[in-house]
């Protein structure tokens, strides 16, 4: 059993695992940070997205060993009901989620986009979120929410 230190949502954590190839996703969820979801386990759907050193990363593919020493931000770290990230506030205002299972991944990708490009075009949003699948069909509301968040200075 080895211990892997990483900074999650601004707090130092040590995740224990007997397998260095354990996906970061399981480590996060084992700590109770369940916003990142298992959707496919193949890096295809985006439900597991987190920010790793600021970049959108598939936590289902990122191993705990390779995440060691890095900084992870999950949806829980972006904001809370009491202090919403502008993307979260926009997603709530636009009533984006249906089942909501893809929503965490969408929010991470959107937050990363707006951090890099504060006034994206609709095409920019579609491109940035191309790797986030949604089976309920919330896509139009997602785009509207991200546009709304960008106008608000997200």
């Amino acid at each position, binding site marked *: 059993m080895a211990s892997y230190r990483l900074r999650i949502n601004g707090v130092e954590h040590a995740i224990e695992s007997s397998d260095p190839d354990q996906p970061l996703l399981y480590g996060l969820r084992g700590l109770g940070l369940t916003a990142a979801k298992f959707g496919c386990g193949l890096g295809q759907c985006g439900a597991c997205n987190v920010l790793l050193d600021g970049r959108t990363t598939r936590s289902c593919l990122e191993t705990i060993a390779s995440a060691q020493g890095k900084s992870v931000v999950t949806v829980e770290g972006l904001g809370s009901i009491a202090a919403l990230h502008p993307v979260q506030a926009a997603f709530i205002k636009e009533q984006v989620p249906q089942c909501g299972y893809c929503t965490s991944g969408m*929010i991470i990708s959107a937050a990363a986009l707006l951090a890099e490009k504060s006034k994206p075009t609709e095409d920019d949003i579609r491109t940035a979120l191309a790797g986030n699948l949604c089976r309920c069909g919330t896509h139009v509301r997602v785009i509207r929410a991200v546009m709304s968040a960008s106008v608000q200075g997200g």
Partner: protein
Amino acid sequence: MLKAGALTVGFALAGLTARAGDAIPAPRTLDPNALDSFLVVDGDGTVTLFCGKVDLGQGLRIAMRQIAGEELGIGVDKIKYVEGDTALTPDQGRTSGSNGIQRGGMQIRRAAATAREALVALAAQRLNTAADDLIAADGEVRPKNGGAGIRFADLIGARSFNLKLNPKAPLKNPATYTLVGRPLPRPDVPAKCTGTFTYMQDFSLPDMIHARVIRPPAIGAKLIAVDEASIKDLHGAKVVRIKDFLAVVADDEWTAVRASRSLRAQWSDWSGLPEQDKLVATLRADRDITDEVLVTRGQSAAGNPPGAVTRSASYFWPMQSHASIGPSCAVADVSGDSATVWTASQGTQAIAKLSHASLACPRKRCGSSTSRAPDVTA
């Protein structure tokens, strides 16, 4: 973490958050023809609505409140909501095909209208006023022309309604609607946007073990042999085999996943499906495929006019699964003679029956609950 036990259910609505451990009034009956199955008037100015249909993200949690609140005369923020739990909600059938509002909502509407009729009748007696001169609104019944009213809780007290749903209970005039027809926010949205909504996949019980099912390589393949030694290095992983059903269990989730990938099993050959490359031809040759005329327009009895052109085209799209993005998931708490199963299901009543059969568990004691996490099926 949710406490074990089918009767502990959490729910939250802006302005009305139930704390963990809050008692939900048990319905007096589960009979889908009885008013008491659907509605309980609580002593604190609220009512509890018990709904057999489940919210998968389509918004029943607010829509059903709107329907009930409109007919009954109470605000949506005063309505507590229990859904899908087979121990607590009437069997309203499966949630699918857009029937939630169409059928389930109409039962809820009738229940609320029946309750309003009964509460108005009680108030008419107490206030010595004709029922037609009374109105139910804001959780009370009061004279239309002003004057003090009586709260629902003070009218019915701790008693049951003991009424069947009345198909003739007067329905509210749509011209006077204040709730139905308005786009009210769905109560689960904020939690889904802040990562605090508990899905089936996030739900755990103390000392819970994890499992992964290992699927056969083909529909009709039989399980011939399992090499349990192939996972001996995965500490704590064990094989579960029941005839052709194969799974692994472990104390932690990642170990169960690894075991499911590493376990060597031998399955029989089965190749009864059509070849992928020949799928179109196979389907066309199927004797159950029939021609269907969709539109006939402008054709004379004498057939096509001279010079008419015939055009044809062929379209085919691949097999698709009507599935959710979240993987299938369930938690079962099985003890001596009872079991509680939590699963993201569109038909919890059917799951309860299945559990009963699979576990050889007395029907009354096999509950099925989706109250925590129905949204993953879409």
